[in-house]
C-alpha cells in the first residue's frame, strides 16, 4: 500500500520570503509524484510532476520540487512567494502497476502575509 504525508497542515510566510512545503511518501514500487494547487473554491491545477530523469523538477509560477528517493521525499519550494500564492497545495503519488488512481496527501494551506 502507498501513502502520502504532508507534514504541515498550515504554513504562514511573509511576502517575498522563501517557502518549503514538505511531502513524504511510502510505496513498495517505483512512483510518479505530483504537486497540485487549489485556489479558494476552485478545482485543482497541476503545478509540477516527477516521472523520471532529473530529480529537480520545475513547475509553473516559479515553483520547483526535488525528488529524493533515499529520503522518500518530494518537497516543494519557491524562493520568493507572492500574495497570489496563497492557496492549498496537495502532494500526490501514482504507482502505476494497474492502478487507476492517485493517492493524495491531506494538503498544506499556504498563507502569504503582506
Amino acid at each position: 500500500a502507498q501513502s502520502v504525508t504532508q507534514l504541515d497542515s498550515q504554513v504562514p510566510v511573509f511576502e517575498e520570503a522563501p517557502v518549503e512545503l514538505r511531502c513524504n511518501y511510502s510505496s513498495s514500487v517505483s512512483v510518479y509524484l505530483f504537486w497540485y494547487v487549489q485556489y479558494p473554491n476552485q478545482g485543482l491545477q497541476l503545478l509540477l510532476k516527477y516521472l523520471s530523469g532529473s530529480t529537480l523538477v520545475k513547475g509553473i509560477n516559479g515553483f520547483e520540487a526535488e525528488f529524493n528517493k533515499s529520503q522518500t521525499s518530494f518537497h516543494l519550494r519557491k524562493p520568493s512567494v507572492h500574495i497570489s500564492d496563497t492557496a492549498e497545495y496537495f502532494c500526490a503519488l501514482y504507482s502505476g502497476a494497474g492502478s487507476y488512481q492517485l493517492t493524495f496527501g491531506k494538503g498544506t494551506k499556504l498563507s502569504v502575509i503582506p
Partner: protein
Amino acid sequence: SQTIHQWPATLVQPVGSPLSLECTVEGTSNPNLYWYRQAAGRGLQLLFYSVGIGQISSEVPQNLSASRPQDRQFILSSKKLLLSDSGFYLCACTTGSGANVLTFGAGSRLTVL
C-alpha cells in the same frame, strides 16, 4: 487539452432529498473519469472511477452512486442525502497520453441542511 465542466457550482439541499451532480468532458475521448470529495481538513477522497461507459468502481461504501451513460459524461447521485454528504465534489479525468495526470473540474459545493 481537455476541459471539464461541472454543474451546479453550488447546491443547498435538505436532508433526505435526492442529488444529481453532472460532469462532462471536452477535448478528449475515452477518458478515465473520477469523482472526488473534499471535506474540510480531510484532503481528497476518491469516491468513484470509471474506465468506460457503464463501468463504475466504488472506492468507499456510502450513500452515493455514480453512472456513466456516455463516454464523456459522469453523474454522481444520491436517493436520500445525509448531513455527512456535505462537501466539495470534484470531477476529474485522465487520458491515454499522460494517463497519470489528472485534470480537474471547478467543483460543486454541496451543503446539506
